């Protein structure tokens, strides 16, 4: 047994470490199209102190550490590109505190979205958090570490904007609290009015430290939640429609989606609008506002509201279980998407690009855009499904996604959860002083380059 393995066992016990071929094989990959790379060890800590000791060991031995939630970014962000230790954080899944009056929760770094949802439903039914559409096994810390979005993103911004404090194990092994918990017992602010240090970790994909606790904003869980679905074949009018809808300031979530299958959806753009209320009167009032906002498009016969009765429960479900279905359309268990953050006015060009790429690379597409912060921007997903048993199809999807990212960058978009190749594309285009600052931060926080190496590096 190697000294490193012995040391890891001393830290987390035998059941917390594996270097068996089965775990090394599994933790070397994610469900996306990027090539796998094996770690040397998979370690599952249960406490912040264990994470600290593991990071200190990694520093002494100069071996990489890759923190992992459920590994569902689909972008290969937890593939250990340079081997080392994959830290499976999911055993750190305690909900430590809910401050109901302050509307925030404090969670361990491996707490899943599903467990927080269930906990709030049971113990604080008037509160909710911004659930992403990702499966319920995905973790909250990973979601904020990659600037995820959720069902309240139109109302309140990126899920990382909803962080109210962090506990982080730095690459040096020091444990650091960020925001209000750094000076007191409360977790209500990640930064303001102090210098906002959370930016050193949010969006960094584990390259600057390991998030071991998260403070997260909670929001009112209204008694009623409803959805309307507007359909148009005029993609050029979609931005105007969205502008009018966001002007209302009443929608918790707005998605725009189009897909070729089933055929009933082909050629149309579907705007789903989610809204809530504490009374039926409030719901009906909001429904009327939504209909009034889009009345002109109905008058001009450019669109209309579609009955959602038969798919209402699927649309309202959180997380949406049917979303993963896309992976099985080519009967192959996979899809991957590029999700640039873009201006809403660019929607028609992005929509055209999806179809163009799908035709060029002979792959199946779907697209769902989500409005962010009341319409300042959107996440535009360019999704391609693939058959895992068809390497040629997977290669085509990879090429299509690379081309999609090039297009997004040409359009002035910002990539969401870019993989290591896309990070390089970003850095090549980044204003030199901004890049210098980014690399300086990385170098200062992680001088040995042991944190998720291969990501946010000039040379992998």
């Amino acid at each position, binding site marked *: 047994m190697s000294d490193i393995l012995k040391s890891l066992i001393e830290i987390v016990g035998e*059941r917390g470490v*594996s270097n*068996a*071929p*089965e*775990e090394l*094989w*599994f*933790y070397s990959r994610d*469900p996306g199209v990027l090539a796998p790379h094996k770690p040397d060890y*998979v370690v*599952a800590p249960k406490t912040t102190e264990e994470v600290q000791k593991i990071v200190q060991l990694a520093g002494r031995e100069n071996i990489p550490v890759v923190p992992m939630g*459920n*590994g*569902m970014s689909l972008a290969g962000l937890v593939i250990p590109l340079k081997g080392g230790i994959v830290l*499976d954080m*999911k*055993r750190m899944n305690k909900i430590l505190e809910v401050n109901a009056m302050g509307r925030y929760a404090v969670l361990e770094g491996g707490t*899943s*979205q*599903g*467990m927080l*949802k*269930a*906990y709030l*439903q*049971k113990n604080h039914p008037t509160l909710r958090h911004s659930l992403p559409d990702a*499966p*319920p*096994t*995905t973790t909250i810390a990973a979601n904020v570490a990659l600037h995820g979005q959720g069902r309240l993103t139109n109302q309140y911004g990126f899920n990382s904007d909803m962080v109210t404090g962090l506990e982080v194990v730095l690459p040096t092994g020091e444990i650091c609290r960020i925001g209000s918990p750094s000076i007191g017992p409360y977790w209500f602010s990640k930064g303001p009015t102090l210098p906002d240090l959370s930016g050193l970790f949010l969006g960094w994909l584990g390259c600057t430290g390991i998030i071991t606790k998260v403070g997260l904003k909670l929001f009112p869980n209204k008694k009623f939640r409803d959805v309307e679905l507007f359909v148009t074949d005029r993609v050029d009018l979609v931005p105007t429609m969205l502008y009018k809808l966001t002007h209302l300031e009443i929608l918790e979530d707005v998605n725009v989606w189009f897909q070729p299958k089933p055929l009933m959806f082909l050629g149309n753009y579907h705007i789903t609008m989610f809204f809530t209320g504490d009374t039926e009167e409030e719901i009906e009032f909001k429904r009327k506002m939504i209909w009034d906002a889009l009345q002109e498009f109905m008058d001009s016969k450019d669109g209309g509201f579609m009955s959602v009765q038969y798919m209402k429960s699927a649309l309202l479900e959180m997380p949406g*279980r*049917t979303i*993963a*279905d896309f*992976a*099985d359309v080519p*009967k*192959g*268990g*996979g899809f991957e998407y590029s999700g640039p953050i873009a201006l809403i006015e660019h929607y028609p060009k992005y929509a055209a690009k999806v179809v163009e790429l799908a035709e060029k690379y002979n792959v199946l597409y779907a697209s769902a855009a989500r409005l962010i912060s009341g319409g300042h921007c959107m996440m535009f997903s360019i999704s391609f499904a693939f*058959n*895992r*048993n068809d390497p040629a199809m997977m290669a085509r999807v990879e090429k299509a996604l690379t081309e999609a990212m090039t297009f997004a960058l040409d359009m002035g978009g910002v990539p969401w959860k870019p993989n290591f190749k896309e990070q390089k594309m970003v850095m090549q285009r980044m204003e030199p002083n901004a890049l210098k600052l980014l690399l300086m931060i990385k170098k200062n926080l992680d001088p040995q380059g042991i944190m998720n190496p291969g990501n946010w590096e000039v040379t992998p």
Partner: protein
Amino acid sequence: MTYIRHIEHENIVHRCFRCGYCKFPDDYSDFNCPSYKAFGWDTFSPGGRMWLTRAWLAGEIETSPRFAEIMFSCVTCDNCKTQCVFPKFKDFLTDIFQETRAELVSEGRIPPGVRDYLKAVAASGNPYKLPQDQRGAWAKGTGLKPYTSQEYLFFAGCVGSYDEVGQKMAQSVGRLLVDAGLDVGILGNEETCDGNDVRTLGEMGLFAELALANLEKFKAKGVKNIITLDPHALNTFKKDYPALGGKFKVLHYTEVVAELIKKKKIKLKPWPVKITYHDPCYLGRHQQIYQAPRDILNAIPKAELIEMSRSGLNAFCCGGGGGNFFTDILGTAPDSASRVRVREAMETGAGIIAVACPNCAKMLTDAVKMENLEDKLEVLGIAEILEKAKK
């Protein structure tokens, strides 16, 4: 030696997205896959097994004790089938794990506990290695008679026949059926293993041997209706035996007892007690029998049935399915299924966990001891509860 491996459903193994819905109940409140809960590695989840099976079939990983442990730690509770979001292949998940186990059995690369279990059943007709002529001893004093041509055959199964906890369950059911005037008999020393767990552990040859021998016996004795103590036996009699020529009706004892209560053949007195009910996977998710046990417990005047947070379709397994009752691959650590389950039962405030499966009874009884809850929580078979509440 190089093996060329094939399983029946290998053409769909690659379709798992490993999204992880399969780990949860439908409210996502906790992990509902017993092996994932116990081991905590993604490899021990249904998605992990699917991906590893694919890698193994492709030769990317080799057969190893770890691989076998991962495969044989599945308790076949069917939670993954219930929760998987892919309707076109979800029904085959546990079949795939069982087929992989069958390949491992063929290779002879199985965990020692599995090997010992299969050897014992093959040699003794039961996993306890106890003599066949002691199999019917449990029935002494119950009033049950040897089966000749009665309307029903009561099938006790291996656990009901040989395990102390199982025997108590079998005896109480036997007395209840006899007292209610049901025309019922037992095979006693002629009974042999039903083979359900042999099949789930992948020893298909031994299963066929057991099943065919049972069928021959049932046919020779003219058995038309079987009442099982064990939901595992119920499952294989209903699902697997018909394909081998089995033509008989099979009921679980809770279904029969619920009817007897409705017909007032069993009369109950008030008993102010708080009871929670643990759904056995092979009665619930496998056979969709949720209501009969609840109807029985609700029929006890003044008794209060309190559901656990995970119940019915979302019930958390006791960890004793898929052969783990005998092989104990899940172990007895605090996150082992049975210990988690009794802690969940404690949260209800009930003093009794009602069970309808002898495997569950044993698993949960042991877990109550490990959790030091013996003075707070009692595990009782549904018939044992009824005997306490009978007029």
